[in-house]
């Protein structure tokens, strides 16, 4: 402490007031000290003076002093000791409010000196006659465990907490459960020296289970959340017990608190895995729907959390909200983060019976002002077309109407979407092509341009003036972005192969420009390869460039099954909200191969670890495929919609055959499939690696596509859009390891 404190200034005055003989003046001074602390001024120098005011009958003043102590105890450890006596005395106060306050605050001081004095009063408070004190003391054990676990164990506090689970007061039970769960998480997440996972400190047995189920109906809302969370960890002895738990938890769906409802959903989803009576499963699913829908009347932030979870639930059980699509229609004043999630869910719920009302909604959204939302709505129309064959005609009609509005970004997005529809239904909508081509000049976004060029190339033989249209792009070739250049190149070659006589000059010109004047190695490389192919073996060129492409489908899940299973077990947590396993964002951890393997092995549904890894490998790719913002428009792949079979991904294959010995290698190749910067990956290492068969058919396209993603070369479109940078982090982390 600074002994030579200045004789004036605010702190000097405060010090004088803190030592005043008048009670009111002292209290007022404490308030001013706290006010200064709140705005961030350093008032730690007043520590001894504030401390003198700790002993008081005035409970408000006591609270203020305690607050001050909590803030500065760490910086003044040797002075905190002076407060110990008062604290210990306060834990004996006749007023339970004071006893609880003292034990609560002592736990928050986090000064080594004081911890040693905490054990005795805590011992006392855990057995206090007043439940308010007991419930406060229960949490204090968790606080102590965080600072000095051995003290908790030596004093037998864990056993006392276990006893409190049987307490008569439901609030005490709830906090005992909370404390035990907190300690359990802390204990099991610590890296152990032996390599074995730490044994949990809170293992729920049938006896505790029955206590929890009783307390559940009586305690406060937050206590229920905590008890439900504990229940979700319980491993049922048999199917009967699972059924019993589900039946006891179902009434919680009627609770007014959204987090209680979600916690109950989580318990049911977990224990339903072992419920084999079809009627009961059906009943549970049926009962789950109305409360989920009601969550949409909550404040927008809560709605958002609910929507993210509903999205997961629908992937696991598509039947949950079958007839409820209308409730997900966007309100005009919904925040955009809510609207986007609703769109996602509407597509998931789209079926033949509701597609008409969905389309008319989507069309309505496409005329709103929020550009981003408009684009996503148009994308949704495309997804709808790809999901439901029977709706494709109507979707195309809506898209044509939208193109008719001539609003620039609407038209461009519609063109991009049309390309996917062409991909899914080849040669079905050729009548639309003239309308699309009519808008050629209005396109200024690379993705839209590239899409239209792809369409022209693909249907070159059906478009009379294809050469003319492409010539426009050939003439401006060097000014275009790389994605457009690559598309132009391929399209012209396709045109030449289909109509050799009309495009002879054009193909020569584009190959010349691409090889000589272009500064992108990808474009140059692709041009050279085309050139060589065309000049040596036109038949081979045809086989490669005009190869048949596999159809695309809309995947039902956006996360791989094994990850989905984990996320379902994490309903209402951050993991379920991000749609990412906890290890990927809780900082301490990098997702290691062995961790994945262990997790896979832990899964109840006896999925073999190998299969799991394969799925994760595939899933990582699927994930990229589905991040609409993320997927650059390159080659003739439909944006974000494509997901074909993942059969021959080398990473996965490696794992299955068990060829590689080093798990890290596996991981590199797993993630290599999804991220773009792994050198040893074959050229097809691009985000769209899921499309395995077109690779064989169109290797040059992939070559270009893959390489153009190297950082520094990426143009506006090809560089990954930073939207998902958060989500990509784990992958980058992993790559950083090597």
């Amino acid at each position, binding site marked *: 402490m600074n002994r030579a404190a200045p004789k004036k200034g605010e702190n000097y005055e405060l010090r004088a007031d803190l030592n005043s003989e008048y009670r009111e003046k002292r209290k007022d001074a404490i308030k001013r000290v706290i006010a200064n602390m709140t705005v961030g001024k350093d008032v730690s120098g007043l520590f001894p003076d504030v401390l003198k005011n700790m002993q008081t009958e005035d409970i408000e003043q006591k*609270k203020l002093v305690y607050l001050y102590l909590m803030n500065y105890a760490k910086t003044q450890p040797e002075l905190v000791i002076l407060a110990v006596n008062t604290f210990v005395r306060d834990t004996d106060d006749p007023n339970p409010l004071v006893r609880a306050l003292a034990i609560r605050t002592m736990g928050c001081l986090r000064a080594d000196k004081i911890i040693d004095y905490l054990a005795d009063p805590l011992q006392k408070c855990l057995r206090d006659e007043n439940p308010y004190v007991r419930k406060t003391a229960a949490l204090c054990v968790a606080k102590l465990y965080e600072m000095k676990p051995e003290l908790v164990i030596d004093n037998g506090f864990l056993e006392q907490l276990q006893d409190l689970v049987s307490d008569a007061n439901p*609030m005490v039970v709830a906090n005992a459960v909370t404390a035990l769960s907190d300690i359990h998480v802390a204990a099991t997440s610590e890296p152990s020296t032996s390599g074995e996972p730490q044994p949990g400190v809170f293992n729920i047995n049938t006896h505790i289970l029955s206590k929890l189920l009783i307390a559940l109906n009586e305690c406060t809302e937050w206590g229920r959340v905590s008890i439900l969370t504990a229940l979700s960890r319980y491993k049922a002895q048999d199917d009967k017990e699972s059924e019993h738990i589900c039946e006891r938890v179902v009434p919680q769906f009627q609770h007014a608190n959204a987090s209680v409802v979600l916690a109950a959903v989580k318990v049911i989803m977990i224990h339903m895995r072992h419920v084999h009576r079809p009627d009961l499963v059906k009943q549970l699913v049926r009962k789950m729907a109305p409360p989920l829908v009601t969550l949409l009347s909550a404040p927008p932030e809560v709605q958002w959390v609910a929507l993210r979870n509903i999205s997961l639930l629908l992937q696991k059980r598509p039947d949950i909200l079958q007839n409820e699509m209308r409730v997900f229609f966007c*309100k005009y004043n919904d925040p955009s983060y809510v609207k986007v999630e609703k769109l996602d869910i509407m597509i998931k719920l789209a079926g033949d019976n509701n597609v*008409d009302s969905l389309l008319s909604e989507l069309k309505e959204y496409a005329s709103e002002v929020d550009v981003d939302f408009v684009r996503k709505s148009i994308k949704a129309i495309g997804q709808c077309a790809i999901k439901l064959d029977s709706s494709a005609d109507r979707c195309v009609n809506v898209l044509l109407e939208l193109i008719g509005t001539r609003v620039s970004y609407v038209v461009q997005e519609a063109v991009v979407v049309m390309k996917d529809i062409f991909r899914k239904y080849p040669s079905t909508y050729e009548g639309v092509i003239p309308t699309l081509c009519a808008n050629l000049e209005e396109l200024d976004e690379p993705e839209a341009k590239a899409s239209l060029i792809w369409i022209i190339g693909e249907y070159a033989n059906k478009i009379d003036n294809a050469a003319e249209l492409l010539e426009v792009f050939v003439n401006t070739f060097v000014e275009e972005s790389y994605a457009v250049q690559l598309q132009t190149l391929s399209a012209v070659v396709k045109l030449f192969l289909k109509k050799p006589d009309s495009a002879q000059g054009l193909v020569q010109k584009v190959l010349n420009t691409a090889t000589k004047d272009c500064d992108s190695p990808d474009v140059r490389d692709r041009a050279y390869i085309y050139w060589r192919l065309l000049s040596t073996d036109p038949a081979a060129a045809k086989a490669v460039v005009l190869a048949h492409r596999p159809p695309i489908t809309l995947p039902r899940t956006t996360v791989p099954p094994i990850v989905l299973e984990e996320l379902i077990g994490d309903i209402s947590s951050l993991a379920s909200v991000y749609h990412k396993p906890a290890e990927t964002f*809780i900082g301490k951890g990098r997702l290691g191969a062995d961790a994945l393997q262990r997790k896979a092995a832990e899964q109840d549904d006896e999925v073999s670890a190998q299969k799991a890894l394969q799925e994760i490998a595939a899933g990582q790719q699927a994930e990229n495929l589905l991040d609409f913002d993320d997927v650059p428009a390159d080659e003739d792949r439909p944006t974000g919609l494509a997901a074909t079979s993942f059969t021959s991904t080398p990473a996965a294959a490696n794992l299955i055959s068990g060829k590689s010995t080093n798990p890290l290698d596996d991981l590199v190749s797993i993630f290599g499939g999804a991220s773009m910067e792994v050198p040893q990956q074959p050229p097809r290492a691009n985000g769209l690696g899921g499309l395995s068969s077109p690779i064989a058919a169109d290797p040059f396209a992939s070559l270009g596509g893959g390489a153009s993603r190297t950082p520094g070369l990426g143009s506006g479109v090809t560089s990954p859009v930073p939207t998902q940078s958060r989500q990509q982090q784990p992958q980058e982390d992993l790559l950083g390891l090597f």
Partner: protein
Amino acid sequence: MASVVAILDLKGKPLIQRSYRDDVSPSNLERFLPLVLELEEEGNQVTPCFSSQGINFMHIRHNNVYLVAMSKRNTNAAEVIVFLHRLVQVLVEYFKELEEESIRDNFVIIYELLDEMMDFGYPQTTESKILQEYITQDAYKLTVAPTAPITVTNAVSWRSEGIRYRKNEVFLDVIESVNLLVNSNGAVVRSEILGSVKMKCYLSGMPELRLGLNDKAMFESTGRTPHGKAVEMEDVKFHQCVRLSRFESDRTISFIPPDGEFELMSYRLSTPVKPLIWVEAAVESHKGSRVEYMVKVKAQFKRRSTANNVEIYVPVSDDADTPKFRASTGSVQYAPDKSAFVWKIKQLGGGREFLMRAHFGLPSVKNAEDSERRPPITVKFEIPYFTVSGIQVRYLKIVEKSGYQALPWVRYITQHGDDYSLRTALEKGSAPIVPM
């Protein structure tokens, strides 16, 4: 679980903060607003939860402040977000208004509340009625220090013992809010009824209450036949005082009520609702000179009911000027701050129909940036003595061991929900939407 809870102003500066756990330093709060801005700048959604460098930020916005919680673990996001909303609710009940000013003025009591409402990052007591019993703004007025907060840990944690009233009364308000969306072709796209039973309880002692509604599921479970119409509620939510397991087994709503005012239950019906108040607008726009509106309102409910304080908001473009109105009833005002004009009708009888015309001038030069905004028409109203779902209170039984007689009073009202909107009619002359 939250490690830090804080209230920040719009510049991202903490107005007040409370650290509950050591694993996240409060200094991370400084990163919150820059991260939000960065997300916005990159054209991304600013979602209520996001993670950066191992720290998870969970936030809500209220007036001119952010409420932010931070955590390092894979925490229960739903719990934290709901808690932040509850914190707002409590602070509003304490200070009427929650904004920068009121936070600065009341920091002492907010610290106290934060200390009581959350411990070690876990929510504790968030019932403002209970909190107000022992955390008061005028602590100095109290001659005796507040003592044992029995209610906090009572098995009945929401009601204190020893409450006395000379006259024992209960007031029940059944309020139904209608949310509805009508498409521009006149079809009801979505409709729902959000009902709420609010109670004002002035009862002595520890009364046991039982509420009977004409709930279809209840009749089915008890095998009785209803006298009139029975209503099928799709989802019901209860105040924590209601015994949920009892409701689950035989649909009985039994409870010991908190004292004073509270929401006993809320329910939802998504049965199709005929728009009670129908509004139609025809727009004729002459680009660069003027725009005309013709608005028709029709009360589509029984003649014996009347809608009070009907307000119809018709959106107009921002640059419209020189408004002229003519209405066959009520008054019309231009509300440029809402980009709309408002037609107010004090009383609208069932079955009645009225017309209104509006005329605006438009600037001759159109702002190129101004794209076609088409917000829907929104309507506000309330219809007393009427529930659109037909729900009724059949009985309210009150039993207390002292055996007093108590009087229950019931009121019904139907009103607009937060989203009663009708999409604007298309411009005359443009193609109508083809029904698919």
